[in-house]
């Protein structure tokens, strides 16, 4: 597919280090959009970003320690005090609220964006060291990502026009 795709000769790499429901968005949004604009994109998944390659995603978001997370509720923006965020079920509740907003506002799901990234030939590299460290197995991951390490990213980054760390 990529061979017949118009490319503008530009390339971009993104280091993906975060795997919460909110932070999963920026790398996938930028990767899919850049790919749609003819940019060759490489995503390097490391540390908490690595689980974004698991076949079954179970992403959550917590308001704990994040006073900037104010969700719209009945016309106002509400933050959850840390003390409440610590209670059992608070993370699940915040995740449900976020997912409802995502659906209501016509925002793509992470699964949808990840599939769009795969469909548009975004290259994905799974950090081998993180696989070892957190004991992830390749068979639990989606098909497509290759294994690599820091040198693999550096080689790509040196040839790229844009390099992001998210």
């Amino acid at each position: 597919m990529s061979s017949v795709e118009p490319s503008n000769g530009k390339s971009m790499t993104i280091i993906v280090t975060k795997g919460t429901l909110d932070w999963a968005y920026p790398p996938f949004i930028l990767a899919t959009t850049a790919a749609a604009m003819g940019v060759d994109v490489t995503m390097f998944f490391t540390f908490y970003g690595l689980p974004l390659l698991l076949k079954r995603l179970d992403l959550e978001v917590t308001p704990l320690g994040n006073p900037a997370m104010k969700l719209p509720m009945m016309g106002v923006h509400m933050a959850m005090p840390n003390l409440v965020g610590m209670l059992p079920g608070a993370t699940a509740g915040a995740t449900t609220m976020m997912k409802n907003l995502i659906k209501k506002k016509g925002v793509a799901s992470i699964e949808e964006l990840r599939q769009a990234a795969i469909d548009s030939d975004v290259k994905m590299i799974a950090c081998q060291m993180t696989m070892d460290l957190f004991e992830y197995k390749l068979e639990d991951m989606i098909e497509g990502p290759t294994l690599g390490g820091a040198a693999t990213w550096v080689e790509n980054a040196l040839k790229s026009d844009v390099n992001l760390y998210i």
Partner: protein
Amino acid sequence: MSEHVLDAKGLNCPLPIIKAKKMLKDVPTGEMLRVLATDPGSVADFAAFCRTTGNELVESKQDGTTYSFLIKRLS
């Protein structure tokens, strides 16, 4: 000249761009793709998309809450 239409109303960034790109692949060079969207960010985004991909943004207009973009496939 035939016109292809993509209804991206109700979709948020980056879905209108991604779906437009997907559809543009099947539009023969020289023909038009009409995109309808409700995302106000798509006004700047479709202009940037067309500049970067070498396609022509023939028309960008607003009708109420709906934005309409006419893209001529050149690349």
